[in-house]
């Protein structure tokens, strides 16, 4: 919620006024929000780390989360999300070149890749629940796992809404050079969410349980 508020907050004080830092109000606000969000994920990741090895609790019958992970599948969807950062960069550079059409196409591609990632997450959650019998309340591991990845999923979804909002909301006003800061801010958010995923992916799926 807060993220979106920040994102759409328009320079109410006539953003043209020079700022002391040289960074526009909107961009500074976005940076501040993201720095705060780091702590949010920091706390969530710490909580997960605490319960990282507890997947067997409550007689689930698993020794290790690697019994249920489908690493190739998750790697693929992570790759998709990473690629979406690339398309986001391409979109911004197109907008900077005043190439409105390309800007829109790349932005839609970014949103699409984000949706593929979310689709993958939904699939994974369903699989865990239906095939492996891991519900939200099953044990400490499942609670921590679903909460952490769920919060990240919500962040990605908000990002998708921001992307679609920018594409469709600018149909009349155009998405030219003048909108480059808008696109840049959406991009900042999007890259942040991607980087957080890299950390989450490492923590959950890569570091072996010794």
């Amino acid at each position: 919620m807060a993220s979106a508020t920040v994102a759409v907050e328009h320079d109410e004080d006539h953003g043209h006024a020079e700022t002391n830092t040289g960074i526009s109000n909107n961009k500074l606000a976005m940076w501040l929000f993201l720095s705060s969000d780091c702590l949010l994920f920091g706390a969530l990741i710490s909580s997960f780390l605490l319960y990282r090895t507890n997947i067997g609790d409550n007689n689930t019958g698993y020794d290790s989360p690697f019994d249920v992970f489908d690493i190739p599948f998750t790697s693929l969807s992570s790759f998709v999300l990473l690629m979406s950062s690339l398309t986001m960069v391409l979109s911004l550079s197109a907008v900077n070149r005043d190439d409105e059409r390309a800007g829109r196409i790349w932005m839609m591609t970014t949103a699409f890749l984000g949706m593929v990632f979310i689709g993958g997450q939904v699939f994974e959650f369903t699989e865990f629940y239906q095939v492996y019998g891991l519900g939200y309340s099953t044990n400490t591991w499942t609670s921590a796992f679903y909460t952490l990845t769920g919060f990240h999923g919500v962040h990605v979804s908000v990002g998708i809404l921001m992307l679609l909002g920018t594409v469709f909301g600018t149909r009349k006003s155009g998405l030219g050079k003048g909108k480059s800061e808008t696109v840049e801010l959406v991009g900042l958010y999007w890259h942040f969410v991607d980087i957080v995923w890299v950390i989450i992916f490492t923590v959950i799926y890569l570091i072996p349980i010794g």
Partner: protein
Amino acid sequence: MAIVERPLAIGAGDDAVPVVDRPLGDLTRPKISGTWKDWLSTVDHKKIGIMYGVAAMFFFVIGGAEALLIRIQLATPNGTLLSPEVYNQVFTMHGVTMIFLVIMPLAAAFANYLLPLQIGARDVAFPRMNALSFWVFLFGGLFLNSAWLLGGGADGGWFNYAPNSSVTFSPSHGIDFYALGLQITGIASLVSAINLITTVLNMRPKGMSLFRMPVFTWMNLVVQFLLLFAVPVISVALFELTFDRLFGANFFNTEAGADPLLWQHLFWIFGHPEVYILILPSFGIISEVIPTFSRKPIFGYSFMVFSGIAIGFMGWGVWAHHMFVSGIGPISVAAFSLSTMFIAVPTGVKILNWLATIWGGRLRFTTAMLFAVGVVSMFTIGGLSGVTHSIAPADTQQTDTYYIVAHFHYVIFGGALLGIFSGFYFWWPKMFGYMLNERIGKWNFWLQIVGFNVTFGPMHILGLQGMSRRIDTYDASFGFEFWNLVASIGSFIIAAGIAIFFWNISYSRKQWKKAGMPNPGPDPWDARSLEWMTASPTPEHNFDEEIVVESLDEFWHRKYGYDENNNVVRIATAEEVAQDGSNTNVHLPSPSYFPIVLALGLPIIAYGLIYSLWLCIPGAALLIYGFVGWIFEHPDDPNAAHDHHDEHGDGDEPDALDAPADDAGADDEAELVAAGTETEADNG
């Protein structure tokens, strides 16, 4: 009326193409009506600051009543006023209310009102977001307190340790209200932190470098950074608690093998920075009051600033001193014991600086000054008892006794709250255009400080005698009865002091009206910073023209100079230097209903989470409605009757662009200017 549309205007560039909007229902653009309705849609940082203050004082009365209930219960052995269950709720809600709904919003009231003024800005960076913060805070606070009407308040103590906070041990909804209510007020703090930091970093006028900012502004900047990083941590803890209680998660479910220390760590990582969030604004206030009434610049300005920053950093490294007896292991205990001793250093630096400022000054003991001196002395006592429990072995004896209760009341009441009262007396004329009566003010002060010491001083003794905190009664044979009775009498003296404060407000106002509403002038105290350089009460547009700043204490330096013998001499009167507020040509942000609409969605969603998820649908609908409306509403109504001239006048005139391109009723700029003069009069 045309509204310029900037769809999803995330920092839309200057060349956004104006389009005529389809207005979203009636809420699209509030009109200034000159009635109370203006307050619902205002985006003026001063009005928002005042609303923060009023709301916080309302909660202060509630929290104060809870405190009196506690003291009546404990006045005599085997008290029967409150059952143990209700007693738990009363002390929990008292603590939560005082910290989150009184001290924090009172600090926010001053920060909102003063930060833009002290740096010489016209408003905050995001005026509508500012309104949003306030409404979210207010609704969160009301939501939290509505628990009293819906089965009882939270009962786990303000730090609400797990697993005691689980459904098993606290089956009523009280703790759900706690978790969701604090979540909501947390959003308010976060939004406001982003807003105020952006304001201070980005919107200073020419010459106002960071190290020319008043200490009050500096302390609040540090506080906003602390909030920025502390709030998300408590948010996660509260989310986890909510999910545990409402959706069967296992974060704190010890039966499922959860670690109860997870809550304690998350809570105190937030919690210790939080205590500095409570105290630093008050440090800021008295750093303005003491120099003014000592007629000296603050001693060691840069020490003052850097010790504030140091506290801001070190505050993150001491949290586990709240957990010495939780079984965190000897190494952690030793490390946190040490770090806690160190954090007293920058705090001590501040105290020495205030003393050095007072030293040799030509003192005027106004009520504001008395309260400020009260802070210095009472906080010193509280800080010293804090250092005594930084020593882990001693703390093992003191923790969870009344000694701790004494400590934190000396720092929070004696430090934070007295400072806020100092601020009331100091800035009252600037905010409301009349002075609070000084004679009554002194009664207010002396009753409050005497009552405070009579109440909390004996608690040190009770604690050392072994009276544990949070017990609902005690037996006559324990030897606690004398000091408890003393403390209870003291609490009523405090209540009398506070009542006198409220009385002072209405009495002074009546006297002022009787006297024909004399204006206190821009600078009734011969003060130093920029907020005194404009008329009292502050005109809606703050400053007539941008101030070019050349030094710290700019306003003072414009009033005083040096003669050939290097003696300070008056070179100008305040009236000569100050702006008279007559400029009506200043561009103001337009009011909006969307912040309050958006904020209203949150408590509805929260009720939905507790009672029936169906209720979340209208809540979310309201939220989305407010949100979409917000995006499509241009922050500056081009047709508003405000004067619509840009004060920066740097040739890059967005106003021209904002003018509706093809709206039939579009006024042109000239008419706007003409229309503006009238409204300025009726809303000023």
